[in-house]
């Protein structure tokens, strides 16, 4: 009572209305919605993963669809991945030549290109290019099927859509990404050599010999196989975003965009963790 009078005299009002403002403030409520959506997204993703895993490990297996997706994802992504790999090889060659010449270490140029391409540039470029091509492709395809009720029709035909649509696409991404990475690595090395030999002629044999001097399988295999994780991320995110789409053409566009953005982001974040693991286990 005394406390209340004191507050009144001092002109201080600490009563509840301020909390009401907090509760009804649009900023707070939109932040609350965002947090709710964030947890809902991960919850839904967890359920989706469970459905896919359960469908993938129990018969009947959709081998025909898997082979179709291996072709779709592998052979059709090859040109764009090879082109990106080749372009990165040229850029690395030009940049590394410039830097190494300044430090008087020009002879290390083949090794610099080989290590840069195999360890990081080849895998991450493949991951990002595949995120763009496959994320948009799978996301838009499944989203379009969802909004036109084709996925419901598959389910109504007593066929498990997780088994028919999601599992083969995710598995094909996991299997094809390492192979695409090898293609990107190869094109990067060849174009790196071309860029160097145009400035200062060197035989391909000598370039490769100098480049791989001191290289071990640890420099090739772990970085290549880490892209299987990139494939898992890309396939999972694209299938998930596609199959949970709502709302017509706008929904399809949103699913394609979010598939690309999220899979690219998760690929980069996963790379941070995977590089640390590779350095720790394959020094």
């Amino acid at each position, binding site marked *: 009572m005394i406390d209340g009078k004191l507050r009144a005299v001092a002109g201080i009002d600490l009563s509840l209305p301020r909390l009401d403002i907090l509760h009804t403030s649009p900023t707070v409520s939109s932040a609350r919605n965002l947090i709710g959506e964030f947890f809902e997204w991960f919850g839904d993703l967890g359920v989706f993963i469970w459905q896919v895993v*359960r469908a993938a490990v129990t018969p009947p297996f959709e081998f025909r669809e898997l082979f179709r997706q291996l072709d779709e994802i592998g052979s059709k992504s090859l040109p764009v991945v090879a082109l990106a790999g080749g372009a990165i090889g040229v850029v690395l060659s030009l940049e590394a030549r410039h830097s190494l010449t300044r430090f008087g270490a020009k002879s290390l140029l083949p090794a610099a290109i080989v290590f840069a391409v195999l360890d990081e540039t080849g895998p991450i470029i493949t991951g990002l290019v595949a995120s763009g091509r496959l994320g948009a492709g799978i996301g838009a395809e499944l989203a379009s099927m969802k909004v036109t*009720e*084709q996925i*419901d029709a*598959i389910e*109504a*035909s*007593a*066929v498990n859509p997780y088994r028919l649509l999601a599992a083969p696409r995710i598995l094909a991404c996991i299997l094809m990404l390492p192979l695409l990475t090898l293609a990107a690595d190869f094109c990067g090395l060849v174009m790196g050599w071309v860029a160097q030999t145009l400035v200062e002629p060197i035989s391909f044999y000598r370039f490769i010999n100098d480049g791989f001097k001191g290289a071990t399988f640890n420099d090739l295999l772990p970085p290549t196989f880490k892209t299987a994780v990139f494939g898992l991320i890309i396939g999972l995110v694209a299938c998930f975003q596609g199959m949970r789409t709502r709302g017509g053409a706008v929904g399809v566009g949103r699913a394609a965009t979010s598939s690309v953005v999220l899979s690219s982001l998760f690929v980069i974040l996963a790379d941070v963790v995977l590089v640390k693991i590779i350095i720790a286990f394959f020094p």
Partner: protein
Amino acid sequence: MEREKAGEEGNAPVVAVEDVHKSFGEQKVLTGVSLQVSRGETLAVLGRSGSGKSVLLRLIIGLRKPDSGSVRIHGQDIAGLALDRLGEIRIRMGFLFQYGALYDSLTVEQNVAFPLQHHKKEMSRSERGGRVRELLAEVGMERDMEKMPSDISGGMQKRVGLARALALEPDILLLDEPTAGLDPISAAEICDLVLTLQEQHHMASIVVTHDLHSAKTIANRLILLHEGTIAIEGAFEELQHSDVEFVREFLRDS
């Protein structure tokens, strides 16, 4: 197993919906709907747009789950069933979607062959081809087998959708707005087709429509949905003689 048998014998209902409630957020769509359909019977579900007719059909085939209440198919409650177990029940159900929902990357022939490829693996390629031709002939689409869904009209897409729904010889047929968006002649053709198929296959059918004329032609029993519940149930004549204001209004405006 005994329940399944019971469902198939006599006039025991093969579809039984009991006190089903369904909401989307704050919006209550169904608030206590119950219905039963037996073999050889065609039930038409009428109602205004947005009255929850299509939602009801999706609950029956398990594409959506009710908030409360039960949906029994051949005596088996389908709520909470895993997707593969639900699939075993869905094999005996055919569903015609409002816009056909044909797979746009497959031809008409491949669309109809799709359920057979997945569930009749013992069929040889030629047997499957023969069955697909037979089904397409039943719906008058045998000359358009090689066409893509985008190359045929809406009415033709519904015919192909119907052939696909019948591929596994279902004993329950669910039709979502079979005549919506069609010209009167195509709509009448679809109605005749459904009647013929119903006579031939003796299925339990549920037809969702807002087209009173189609409902009258196809169904031997009708229900009218209003504000999430069944406003009236009975034969067309019973609806005509109803004193319920909404029913009179619906019949007058249809």
